[in-house]
């Protein structure tokens, strides 16, 4: 069930290890490139984790969710890494437009996965429903990995 607890802990699982890895390693240097490089990679990883979490976690729980609270909790999960993304923006590691576009893409993906999963669960019988939702999981995850490798500035690394 996509309740508040799952949303918060999913967000924390995405953000906490990355923050613990990134922030202590930020050092001042002659052109600030090491901090920017590190924060830029962190942004890529966060976006990938957000998208993969949506692709893998959302389809199985969609049939049990009410639309409005589910979307609010989804937004809460996506908002938890925003301070780290803000740090990346203000340090010049990523542009604001780039940051907005990636977050918008993640939201679009969430909307698409949610709608498709709801549609599959409404029209198919229980045996085919699990198969359909698994297919959505796999195809969404495959799409995320493919886009991550081609679209993200750091190549998803």
């Amino acid at each position, binding site marked *: 069930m996509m309740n508040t607890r799952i949303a*918060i802990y999913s967000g924390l699982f995405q953000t906490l290890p990355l*923050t613990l890895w990134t*922030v202590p390693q930020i050092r001042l240097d002659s052109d600030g490139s090491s901090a920017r490089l590190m924060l830029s990679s962190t942004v890529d990883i966060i976006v990938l984790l957000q998208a993969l979490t949506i692709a893998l976690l959302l389809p199985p729980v969609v049939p049990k969710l009410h639309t409005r609270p589910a979307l*609010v909790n989804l937004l809460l999960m996506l908002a938890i890494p925003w301070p780290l993304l803000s740090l990346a923006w203000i340090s010049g590691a990523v542009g604001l437009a780039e940051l907005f576009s990636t977050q918008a893409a993640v939201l679009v993906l969430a909307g698409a996965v949610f709608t498709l999963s709801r549609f599959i669960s409404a029209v198919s019988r229980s045996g085919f429903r699990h198969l359909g939702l698994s297919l959505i999981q796999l195809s969404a995850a495959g799409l995320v990995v493919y886009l991550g490798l081609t679209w993200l500035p750091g190549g998803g690394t």
Partner: protein
Amino acid sequence: MTKGRRTALAFWLWALLTLVCSQPAWSCEALAMQLIPAWGGWFRPGRTTELAITLKAARNGEYLLTLTSTGKVIRYNGYLEADHPRRHWLPVQPGANGVVHARLQCGNEEVIEDEHYLIPSGNPLFGVGMGATWPPYPPQQWRGVTDSRLPHTPQGYSSLDLLYLNAVHLTTLGRDQSLALDRYLAGCGHVILTGKHREWAERIEGIAGCNGRNIHQQYSEFPNLESSRSGLPGMGALEALIQSSTISRQVSLFGTLFLGYFGLLVVGERTRYKPFLLMAVPLTFSLSLILFWQIPTQQARLVSWVEIDTDNSGGRFSALLQVEKLVSQDIPVSLPTILGPPETKPGADIDWRLNQQQPAKGLLHGKSQAFTTRNYGFQGTLRLSPSLSLVTTLPRPVVRNRDKEPTPGGFLAWNGSVHRLPSLKPEQSWSPSEADLIQVENGTTRLLMHQTGENATALVLPFSLRDAGLEFSDIETVGWLMIRARKS
């Protein structure tokens, strides 16, 4: 409207338009700029030289003069009065190709641009100035250059390795030229002095650094010179003397702040607040970070190392200015003009701004990204009279406080080891003993040993450039004064 009236109206409109469009150019009309480099345009790569710039205008007005060489920009704001030419002497550090681009602006309009090609010399330079005749046996490996006028800034001597002077002509020097020459002499600059002038000979003896070792009275054989610039600690050595900064500590605080943020989220979830309310936590934290970044956070620290011979009044210094930034804004650092434009490694940008209204202060601008540390190097000379004297009598050297104030404690390097020098009361003397020997080295004692060399004696005391009368605002200054011993 008849055709004739239309033509007349068009004419008047054209005339009005021409008048309006040409107005800014009129205010800069008859502006002229002439640039003359010191020492015939010769310079040593990586060192500074001087440009004499004459500006003239037909009307009063403010101007901006910009000198650009590889990665380095020097801007000078001033005011020109009609038909009163103004002459400036500005230090420049040309790039390896020697190109210096000059641009003179009047108001917002670009008026004059000029490009000068200075000549880099791989060989040491000797300058022949002020009425001195060309040396009879100029050496093969040196490049000789003449200049009928001596530089007006200390940086004008920076490219020279030896100066050939006629003492008789020194009486004609202006105030700035005299001060610049004083600083060259105080900085152990090599001089061959011909001609006899008692007053100047005495003055030079009083000024010259390194106890006058580099003042050669007559030309007989070209002296075997060691470079006057060598010997002072470089930027790397000075960086080792800087303690960890507040900004570095602030960066390490971010980790703690983020942990607090995560803790708040967990507590929020436990207290079962609505998701809408919990959304406020990441939003507020993100906004706080963004707002914090609008505060211009910068820390500038200057560490200096001054070297002087005991009983001498001319000291040489090298200094390192370290500017640390969390934000990507351009926050200027105000520095005494006498330090001149800083030296950096090739490729690093310098933007040094001078203003006619405040001739004693220069502004060092730096466009840099967030999380940067910029190092700027300075070298120069100072006039100072240390309160301690150091004499290497046998069997042990003697340090004496000649001042009326107690001196701070420091270190003495003698006989290959370092002793702790205690604070000395007025007129108190001290000699090292086994009890003062220190075993644990730090950055200062290591540098003291390195600078002292083998079989030599020197002491070092805390001394900031503020103690030498230089004024700094918003800059932490620390440093050391090294006094070399006079052999008894």
